[in-house]
């Protein structure tokens, strides 16, 4: 019986452990310095906002681990000795492994801003960050959030839920426009305003200023504007949490370098999730994927590999989701901020400005390449299958009702969407009725 040790109890590490356990009776140990049990990192914001308590964010009850013979160890791994297959913990103890999985996730980026380590200045990634945020925001009058991405807007929402006014500094000229096309980005700008956030676009942080006690008292922007605040959230992305491997001999770049089997340069050491960096990016994906879903899928593949069924990480068509205050966002396939030269596109926005749809397709043959939907829900299975079957944008529009995933009785917009498309493209597309027969075929 081998001993398989997984460092990190996030979605990548835990999924690896679960899938390995399904196929093997090896000894499995999951190590975490963060929490005793697996919790959903994406739910941290809801704990702060009072929607849930920590215990609600645990996807499995505490007895689950013992029942499935997955040993949990609360410890901080200081170093890995790949020669003797041994981990050294902070407290001086050690543990040997036969195979090692590094699934240590990320840490918030800090770009050397003056004052970035002051009291009241922090990022948000871990459970400890959340606890820190709880104490850092006690009794404050204003917060500044720096960085126009997903964690930034979530942090703004968190702070507002506690009635803390927020100034949101975004370097770009529009929110998250390195990912979102202009119209979607503008929609979210408006929605951020609607929630009473002081959104500052085109604004860069220059310096964080301290009071006499070493706590943040203000930030200064590159334009020289001073903004009084008692809390600064640094949310300019995350990077792999791999510092402890620096001298281990495990090959690193920004993350732990792996091949498509998630193998490192050591034949019994693997990496998965946020901290893994692919030597060769897969398709159009980034070499480091910092998404819940990719962490899970890497774990699904790696669990099999470790159980003796070598399985390459082969993600299917890209999908992702987020929620910007009240506006839900889903995306399937590739929708770049700007369409590519060989692509055509269609954009529809509801008159109230909180619902929209963007479709992108290959100009040459009409094959759909990506969809963005905001404010309404689309069926994942439908788009996954339609991409696989290389359906055209015309097919997709005509069958859009099959993909509608909004709750019952919601107003449907397919008629309006297809009418607009026909008007813009001189086509005669006709909306088909929703068909359960087709939907069931999508699912199978």
């Amino acid at each position: 019986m081998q001993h398989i040790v997984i460092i990190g109890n996030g979605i990548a590490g835990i999924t690896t452990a679960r899938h390995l356990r399904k196929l093997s009776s090896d000894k499995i140990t999951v190590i975490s310095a963060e929490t005793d049990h697996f919790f959903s990192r994406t739910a941290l914001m809801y704990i702060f906002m009072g929607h849930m308590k920590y215990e609600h964010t645990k996807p499995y009850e505490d007895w689950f681990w013992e029942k499935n013979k997955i040993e949990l160890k609360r410890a901080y791994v200081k170093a890995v000795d790949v020669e003797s297959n041994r981990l050294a913990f902070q407290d001086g103890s050690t543990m040997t492994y036969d195979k090692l999985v590094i699934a240590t996730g990320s840490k918030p980026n800090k770009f050397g801003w003056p004052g970035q380590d002051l009291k009241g200045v922090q990022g948000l990634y871990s459970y400890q960050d959340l606890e820190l945020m709880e104490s850092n925001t006690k009794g404050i009058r204003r917060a500044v959030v720096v960085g126009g991405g997903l964690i930034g807007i979530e942090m703004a929402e968190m702070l507002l839920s506690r009635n803390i006014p927020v100034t949101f500094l975004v370097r770009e000229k529009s929110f998250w426009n390195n990912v979102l096309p202009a119209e979607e980005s503008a929609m979210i700008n408006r929605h951020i305003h609607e929630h009473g956030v002081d959104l500052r676009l085109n604004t860069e942080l220059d310096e964080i200023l301290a009071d006499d006690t070493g706590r943040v008292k203000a930030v200064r922007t590159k334009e020289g504007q001073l903004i009084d605040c008692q809390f600064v959230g640094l949310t300019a992305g995350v990077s792999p949490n791999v510092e402890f491997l620096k001298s281990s001999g495990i090959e690193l770049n920004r993350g732990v370098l792996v091949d498509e089997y998630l193998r490192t340069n050591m034949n019994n050491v693997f990496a998965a999730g946020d901290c893994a960096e692919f030597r060769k990016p897969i398709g159009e994906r980034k070499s480091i994927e910092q998404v819940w879903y990719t962490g899970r899928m890497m774990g699904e593949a790696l669990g099999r590999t470790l159980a003796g069924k070598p399985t390459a990480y082969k993600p299917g068509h890209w999908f992702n989701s987020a929620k910007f205050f009240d506006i839900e966002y889903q995306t399937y396939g590739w929708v770049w901020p700007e369409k590519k030269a060989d692509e055509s596109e269609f954009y529809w926005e509801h008159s109230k400005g909180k619902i929209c749809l963007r479709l992108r397709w290959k100009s040459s043959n009409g094959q759909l390449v990506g969809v963005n939907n905001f404010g309404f829900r689309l069926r994942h299975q439908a788009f996954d299958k339609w991409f696989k079957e290389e359906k055209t944008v015309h097919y997709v529009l005509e069958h859009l009702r099959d993909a509608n995933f909004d709750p019952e009785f919601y107003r449907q917009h397919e008629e309006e969407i297809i009418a607009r498309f026909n008007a813009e493209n001189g086509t005669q597309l006709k909306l088909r009725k929703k068909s359960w027969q087709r939907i069931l075929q999508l699912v199978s």
Partner: protein
Amino acid sequence: MSAADPSLSIANPHPHKTDAIQKAGLALAGLGLLTLFLAWGNVPLPKTLSLAFALGGIIFGTTLYSWRLYMKQPEGVKNNGVMFKSLTSRGVLGWVAGVVLTAFYVLIYWYPEYLGYKPGGANEGFVALFDPLSRFFKGKPASQWFLYGTLYTVSILALGIKFLFKYRHNAYQIKRTLVVIAAQLFLAYLIPEILAGLNYNDATNPQGEYLGYYDTDIKNTWPLDYDFFYDWHLDAMQQKAYQPVGMLYLVIGIAMFLVFTPVFTYFFGKRWYCSWVCGCGGLAETAGDPFRHLSSKKLSAWKLERWLIHGVMIFVFVMTAATLYGYFWNTGEVFGLNIYNNFQKPYGFLIGATFSGVIGVGFYPMLGSRVWCRFGCPMAGYMGIIQRFKSRFRITTNGGQCISCGNCSTYCEQGIDVRWYAQRGQNIVRASCVGCGICSAVCPRGVLKLENGPDEKRMDAPAIIVGNDSVSLNQ
């Protein structure tokens, strides 16, 4: 360098502060409640006027408060602070509310005299306050049950309106709540009172002879309405003076159980009843909404649930079988056991009063709003079996989009660990799901959809979650 920015905020950064309009609404509702208590304490008030003020104040005050509270915020999920508030997180206010509610139910069921109910003479106090309304409907003084029915309906109406504002972005919630309010107001309250007023029920003939009472809430179906087949109930429905209404209720009552319930549950799941028309469900979805997250999600709770709900269901079947045997064979005993003492009385006391009333509602702030519906209701048990094995209803999981955040499970009033299914890409088909739709509403990633469709493959667990091509089925 400019000084601190002059206008840091664009809109009111404190949208949640209680403003003057909200305070006015709260004050109005509070005065309404106060009037009820004053009446209970026998403070001499003009009855008709103070009853109108009390009920109107509660309804309009709550409406004003919730209109202002929710309409000044952008529409969306409104669960901020649920886990911090004393009332909704088993804090001091939660315990106080739980004790008050429980005590109120104990009084209603077993000590109505303390509410002022005087069956022989003139009512006093709390019950007497409701005399004018009862006289208006049916020309006789109120009972504790008239008081209860009126307050129950007012609660569903007032807090249903609050719920409508809270979920104004969600068409499913709006439709469902309008129906559940209407079902309570008309089917459970107004129609029965009007029928009694027209002497089709609860009437006394010119000779002064009482003609009996039967339940005229058409949707209150056996076995939830456990005394439907009691001899006094069957006799009342066949009472000559009540025809044709009495027989109509008898026929529909039996058809509800035998025909409508299985057919509707096959097509729509048990939600057509539990969260769309049922009175217990109506209260749970409106007054109970702030407590929905308090249900236990543990596997052990699910195990307990299955024993309890099916235990109660068997209890009511056996009790009813004994009752019908007694009715048709005209005997008070079955197998040497007294039907009343050994079957009806224990069921009425333990299940009818203690479980469904005292624990079912009294413990809202402790155990959540669906304790009775989840652990006790035999009607829910019956429909649950249909829903689980032969129904078109399911909650569809949207491929691989689940992020395991836990909002769905947390806000499931029935304690279903929705996430457990969603995160493995499996549809949710559970006997206990009442189809309230809140899991779908609070999901931040658009993963859950309640829908009716072909029941083939309805509950298959996918071998692979959509979006990962690492593993193929034939591997």
